[in-house]
């Protein structure tokens, strides 16, 4: 399946403002589907950096890396799930988006993205 098709599974969820595939190693955009207002490069870099931090928490506890994470602010949220081959699936959404549905779809996409 093409990256664009995978990302479309995320962006069709109401409230989602963008979805990306990101290289975890360097935080660069591999593929994206974004609304105009979303800065893909910034999202990619920040999501990759935060993922590294999250891995630090689980590593300090002797656990494997997280399956996914969600950062919620008062006006929106950022979600990410590691995929194979050093990729990270990332979504940016409005605060009122269905986080549960988005998480499930994110994990599904992460399982197929490579």
């Amino acid at each position, binding site marked *: 399946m093409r990256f664009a098709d995978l990302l479309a599974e995320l962006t069709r969820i109401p409230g989602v403002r963008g979805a990306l595939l990101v290289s975890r190693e360097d935080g660069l955009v591999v593929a994206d589907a974004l609304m105009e207002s*979303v*800065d893909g490069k*910034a*999202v990619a870099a*920040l*999501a990759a*950096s*935060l993922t590294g*931090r*999250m891995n*630090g*928490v*689980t590593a*300090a*506890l*002797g*656990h*494997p890396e*997280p*399956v*996914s*994470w*969600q*950062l*919620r*602010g*008062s*006006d*929106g*949220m*950022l979600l990410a799930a590691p995929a194979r081959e050093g990729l990270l699936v990332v979504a*940016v959404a409005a*605060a009122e988006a269905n986080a549960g549905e988005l*998480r499930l779809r994110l994990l599904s996409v992460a399982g197929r993205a490579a």
Partner: protein
Amino acid sequence: MTVDDIQALTAQLARDPSSLVFLPLAEALRRRGQLEAALAIAASGAGRYPEMAGAYDLLARIQSDRGEGDLAFDAWTTVLRLDPDHVGAHKGLAFLSFRAGDFARSLRYLRRAVELRPRDESLRGALSRVEDAAGVRPVPGFERGAPDPLRALEAEVGLALLVDPQGRLLAGSVHDSGGKPASEQVGAVLAGISREAERTTRLLGLGPWRELSLEGGPAHFELRTPTSDSVLLVTRPREIPAGRLALLADRAASAARRWLEELR
């Protein structure tokens, strides 16, 4: 006090209902376990002398013995209104607060009681026991040790951690997957995460960050910022539903916020 003494005091009170013998009489009955009779006499005396702190203290002790914590709390609060330095009321309120799991409040009352009666070894011993139970530890940046606010929320220790912006431990503890203490290591990482989360939400226009959820393999994690200068981690095995963990984290964050405000 013998039965004869009690009968004599009872007769004296019957002859003169305004007599202050209601105090030793109700106390004697309380000590003998005759709580109902003691309560009736103490309540009547307190009603007759509404400005007498000792009458309400006696009433509170009887109510406490009867398991009527709320009523005892009210009575001891009345005592402190009448006499703010009443050691017995501070001690009684500390006991009730401890029994209710409010360690911070219990410590406040006991510390005040010790200030009022510094040579009382039993009070010092009680303070020491409550400090142990509350998990009191030195708090970076604060002169006096404070109870661990997460202790009261946690059925199991090792599942919640509160740190300051430098990653120094404020309260709680976490263990690694092998059961070894890992608070220091996790605390150091948490401080960096908070800064990164703040930067991310600011740059992406997501508003101030409120919650960070990690879905792990064997465990899930929730992060909160109880105050602008603290970070809280709460973790549970993945069998605990994510929504319940989020609620636990919210509750722990509220407790931590109150605790930090009290310290200041």
